[in-house]
């Protein structure tokens, strides 16, 4: 029992932190926002130069092994810079699903390309998806980075398929999205051939847990960045002849942010660690992490705007990037209320 980073984990955190701080600059992110929400050079650097994209994926598929803790470390660093990357959909959801539930052939075909960043995958579920054999009709309005995807991992929550984006009957419409760093696309499938994964239960479990962990860890990184940037601003900004950080009400609000963030940190690494150790409480922990960390992020991003005053709600300032990312993380993959309802059912001993 040792709830602290190992040396290797610390090293990964430092590497990823430095990489994103240096490269995922506001200027580059804004450029990506004006296009498809992906900073290609960043994605290339992340996947190929640093090779961080394979973390949490099996070495047999070209991954780096390791687990959810290391994945969380990376997502936290990316989130701190609101990096414009398809990490969530392509790696945490699609690649995890294929790695856990795909055949050897499917893994060999897709994992190396997803890990190298050469291919990008979208992931979506459509509970009303019609499957005529493996020909699929349905779709989703909420496919992150969907316009950039080469393939989609699609599920009706019972089966899971891989669908090629260039297959006939696939149409992808970009949508004006509140969070432009991870735009949503409307993907429609009209009698499109899908390739079924042999172990859908494993695929879904892997995509869910890695999705929750990635969202939660990104939120943690984002929330901490909101606090750090606001603290820095509060020491510089003078109002009424004093640094605003000397006003007690301001200080206390920053303190409250920190109290929440430290809990979010415990939540994220508890959940990641519990998954890696296959502990029973992992089932509860992922719901706790997703809901707590994203709520914390939203609160901290809102506070960041408030505590910056007028400049905080301008387009020019980065606060709105955090704020919109926080909102989208809260909503996607189940609302906080939904996750807490799952937890309530567990502690009340009700059948899941």
């Amino acid at each position, binding site marked *: 029992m040792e709830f602290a980073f190992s040396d290797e984990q610390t090293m990964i955190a430092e590497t990823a932190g430095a990489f994103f701080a240096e490269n995922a600059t506001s200027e580059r992110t804004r450029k990506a926002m004006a296009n498809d929400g992906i900073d290609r050079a960043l994605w290339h650097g992340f996947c190929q130069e640093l090779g961080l994209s394979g973390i949490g994926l099996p070495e047999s598929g070209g991954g780096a092994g390791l687990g959810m803790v290391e994945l969380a470390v990376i997502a936290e660093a990316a989130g701190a810079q609101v990096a414009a990357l398809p990490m969530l959909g392509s790696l945490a959801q699609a690649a995890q699903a294929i790695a856990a539930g795909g055949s050897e052939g499917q893994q060999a075909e897709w994992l190396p390309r997803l890990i190298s960043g050469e291919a990008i995958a979208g992931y979506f579920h459509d509970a009303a998806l019609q499957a005529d054999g493996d020909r699929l009709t349905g779709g989703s*309005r*909420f496919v992150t980075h969907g316009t950039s995807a080469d393939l989609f991992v699609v599920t009706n929550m019972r089966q899971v398929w891989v669908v090629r984006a260039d297959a006939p009957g696939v149409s992808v419409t970009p*949508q*004006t*999205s*509140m*969070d*432009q760093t991870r735009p*949503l696309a409307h993907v429609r499938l009209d009698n499109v051939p899908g390739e079924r994964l042999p172990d859908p239960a494993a695929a879904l479990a892997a995509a869910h847990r890695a999705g929750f962990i990635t969202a939660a860890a990104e939120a943690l990184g984002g929330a901490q960045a909101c606090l750090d940037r606001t603290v820095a601003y509060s020491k510089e900004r*003078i*109002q*009424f*002849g*004093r*640094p605003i950080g*000397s*006003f007690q*009400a*301001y200080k206390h609000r920053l303190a409250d942010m920190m109290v929440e963030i430290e809990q979010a940190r415990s939540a994220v690494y508890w959940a990641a660690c519990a998954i890696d150790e296959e502990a029973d409480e992992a089932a509860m922990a992922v719901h706790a992490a997703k809901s707590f960390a994203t709520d914390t992020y939203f609160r901290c991003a*809102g506070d960041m*705007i*408030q505590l910056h*005053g*007028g*400049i*905080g*709600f*301008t*387009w*020019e300032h980065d*606060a*709105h990037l955090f*704020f919109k990312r926080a*909102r*989208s993380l809260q*909503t*996607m993959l189940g*609302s906080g*209320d939904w996750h807490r309802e799952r937890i309530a059912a567990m502690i009340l001993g009700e059948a899941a």
Partner: protein
Amino acid sequence: MKLGFSPQDELFRQECADWLNGQMAGEFRDIKGVTKLTGSPERRKEWEQQLAAHRWSCIGWPSQWGGREATLAQQVIFAEEYARAGVPGRVNHIGVELAGPTILTFGTEEQKQRFLPGIAAGKTIFCQGFSEPNAGSDLASVRTKAKLEGDEWVVNGQKIWTSLAHISDWIFVITRTEEGSKGPKGLTFLMMPIDQPGIEIRGIRQINGDAEFNETFFTDARCSADSLIGAVGDGWRIAMGLLAFERGVSTLGQQMGFRNELDEIIAAAKANGAANDPLIRQRLAKAEVGLRLMRYGALRMLSQTDHSRIDGAALTYKIQWASWRRNLGELAMDVLGQGGEISDHAEYEWDTLPNLFLFSRSDTIYGGTNQIQRNLIAERGLGLPREPRGTA
């Protein structure tokens, strides 16, 4: 204590509703339901003039200046019917609700004649130049300078958050006229024409993609010597007087806008099934109660005999509505679900509810942040010690 309206008042309500609905079904139907302050500016200037042509532009003003000397009840009714009819907000809100009353209260006869007819007629659109980049919440640290040169004031400096400056004709500005003065002393309140080489306006794009606010730069900008309200050095007093008008009847009109927003949320919740969620139901009820309490709070303020008196309760109004509306924005998004994060517009533009969510983050900041409001309430409302100014 009496909340109901008299039969005469109800007749007046019918008159307002008929006229406003007629306009929104007729000549001005193209602007019905526009909620963004920046939408269709030219048509909305025409609407100001249409209001004036039918003497609905400033009904609370004296008849001499184009008003109707409307009673409180009538002003309440007009504000309510205005919003109920889906009429967009007044682009000359600042002229009618702030500049006009300030001139009526503190201006000279000559100034009244010079400014009030244009404001009443919807031809002089005003904006407000109070905040500065380094004095967001701290009006007393204004640095924009004005100097009397011959028969003109010459102004240099910068204002920020000048809402609608880009479509306005005049701006009132707080300037520092006494060299070396500090704090609330040495300030003067000037009215300046905007269309002049010394004034440059740059839009500030906001979180919602829109640009209602501006930066306004003054470089040897000029106005005539008699454009000051009150005396030289009187600026702080005039500004404080003006801010008190913000808590006037116009708050009720603002609330009717909120009513429309909440109604849209309720309709969305019924349509998409969110209304069946007990958690959403609680929040809808809280929002409804909050809105009602704003209305009755405003009526309590307005029912005080001396309307200019800033009593404790009135001090609580700004933080109340701002916090309420910020929460409303969050509720709106939770009702809409993930679909609320997608816009049907090709550009980064948002319909009423998502726009409410984004824009309302500024409600708790502009016009005095929630933090400043709490200082005011504690210090003026509860008599607690003032925050010390620093010397940095």
